[in-house]
């Protein structure tokens, strides 16, 4: 997840300053503490990463990245993705998460030659850009 963030470009003005943190919210099964620690320890260039769990009553969380893990309610996942559809938010969904087909990026799991699927139309709607380097490692589809 953190490695992927290095290759993502958000629209100008999304972050206040060059050191403003990347807010990463997640829904679904709570990750291991070790995974949370890795995320929190990570930095994307000059920006630290703030990890938080999206509250159940939040329909449109204030974040830059929304991670949808397995175990999330499919409707909840769909509504969140729909709510953030036109926002500059990178929605990343686990391959096993139902209702997350419309996420910008979906993880296919380890062992895959190309571990991501990138919905280029969704990315475009969100105003997100991707480094050409990472494009080699993603399956690209257009919803």
């Amino acid at each position, binding site marked *: 997840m953190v*490695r992927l963030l290095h290759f993502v470009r958000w629209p100008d003005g999304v972050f206040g300053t060059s050191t403003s943190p990347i807010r990463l919210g997640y829904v679904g099964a709570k990750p291991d503490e070790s995974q949370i620690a890795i995320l929190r320890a*990570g930095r994307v260039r000059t920006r630290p990463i703030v990890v938080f769990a999206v509250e159940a009553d939040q329909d449109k969380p204030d974040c830059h990245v929304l991670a949808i893990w397995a175990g999330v309610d499919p409707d909840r996942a769909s509504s969140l993705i729909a709510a953030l559809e036109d926002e500059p938010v990178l929605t990343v969904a686990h391959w096993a998460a139902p209702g997350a087909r419309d996420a910008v990026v979906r993880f296919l799991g380890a062992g895959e*030659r190309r571990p991501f699927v990138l919905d280029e139309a969704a990315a475009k709607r969100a105003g997100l850009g991707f480094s050409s*380097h*990472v494009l*080699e490692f993603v399956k690209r589809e257009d919803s």
Partner: protein
Amino acid sequence: MSSPRRITVAGMPLRLQMILIAALVSTVALGASGLGFVWYEMEQARRMLTSHVELLASTIAHHSRAALAFDDREAAENTLRFLNSQMSVRRGCVLRESGEVFVCHRVDGVEDEAPELAAADLVERSIEWRPDAVVHIEPVRLGAEHLGAVYLESDLSEIARRREAMFMFAGAVLLFSLVGAIAFSAGLQRRVVEPISELVSAAGAVGGDSGYDVRVESRGPVEVRVLMDSFNEMVSQIDKRDRELVGEIGERRRIQAEREKLIRELERRNDEMERFNYTVSHDLKAPLVTIKGFLGLVSQDLERGELETARNDMQQIGKAAERMYDLLDDLLELSRIGRVIHEPETVPLREIALEALETLTRVVEEKGVRVDIAEGMPAVHVDRMRACELLQNLLENAIRFMGDQPEPRVELGARREGDRVIVHVRDNGIGIDPKYHETVFGLFDRLDTGAEGTGIGLALVRRIAEAHDGRVWVESEGAGQGCTFYVSLPAPPLATDTTPA
């Protein structure tokens, strides 16, 4: 055994020194600059290679981030294939953080062992120069995360080739410059050294066979021309002063010789004067004694009335007076020769000789002497009257001192020697002992006191010869062997002497 001669630069000719210096300076300067140039080029090449490899490594590291991050070997290999277009890189690898080789690519296709590096070696950028390669390690980071490193191994053969080419180029430049330096020094030599060498030769020739007529043609650079002009001026001054000095020395020598000659002449005259005084007082006294003696006898004869005896005694007094008269006459003639010289003229010697012989006709006939005057004698440039007196005295002297010679004979001849005519009068008379060869020319010196004459004839001969800057001498093997008198008289200039020599 002599030790070998040591050749030093200072002892070499200027021409060789200039060539040597030009070659040496060119070699040192170009050699040093050539080495500096090669060193600078090599440093530049190393710097450029370093910079190039750093750029390559940095680029590959940047492009390998995603491949390492997402464990894609194929993508990493694709990135490394980019090295195929880089001639300087021999091998490139992407290593994991642990040092494990992720992918490796050999540009020349040679399979070899992958580099073994520890994880600690991959954390920092590093560059290592090995004898045959340069190894660069560029860490691959994704943010703060260290993913691994790029390992690049560059070939140094290109630098070696370049160094070789540089040395060859520098060598060629050095060789070319050496040839140029030698050509330049040869040109310089023509302009500078040759005029100086000419000047040195000219300086060596001054005072030699060429005397001070040595001059050099002013040429070459302005300093050399000034030097040559100064040399010419200096030699001219020396020449002028030398001529003045030679003239002055010659004049002094001439004056000295003249003075010595005058001193000798004065001494001789003084001697002659002393002898003259003695002789005059002695020889003039003799007739006076005779006269005085006979006057006493005449007185006695008259007292006794012996008139005949008195007459005889009176005759003796007359003879003594006549003798005294002759002596005084000769003395007067001798003194006149020393004072009076007529203007010299060119006259055939035979003509003078015949004239002199004519005055002696009576004595020649009395003595029955055969006198031969040579034909074709050269002309002489003399005071004719004095020359005639000279020959007359020599002929008379020869005729008178014949002794008992049954076939008395006198021969007069002459030959030209340079600007002098050597006249000889040869007889077969009584001859002269060698010890008297000089004294016979003295005043009143008579070897035969019984002979006729005043003893002044040969003194006259010498006086006349000396008045003509000549001399007289006699050769005789001794008594009874005859003798030959020689006189040197001035010859006329050759153009006016038409008689055979």
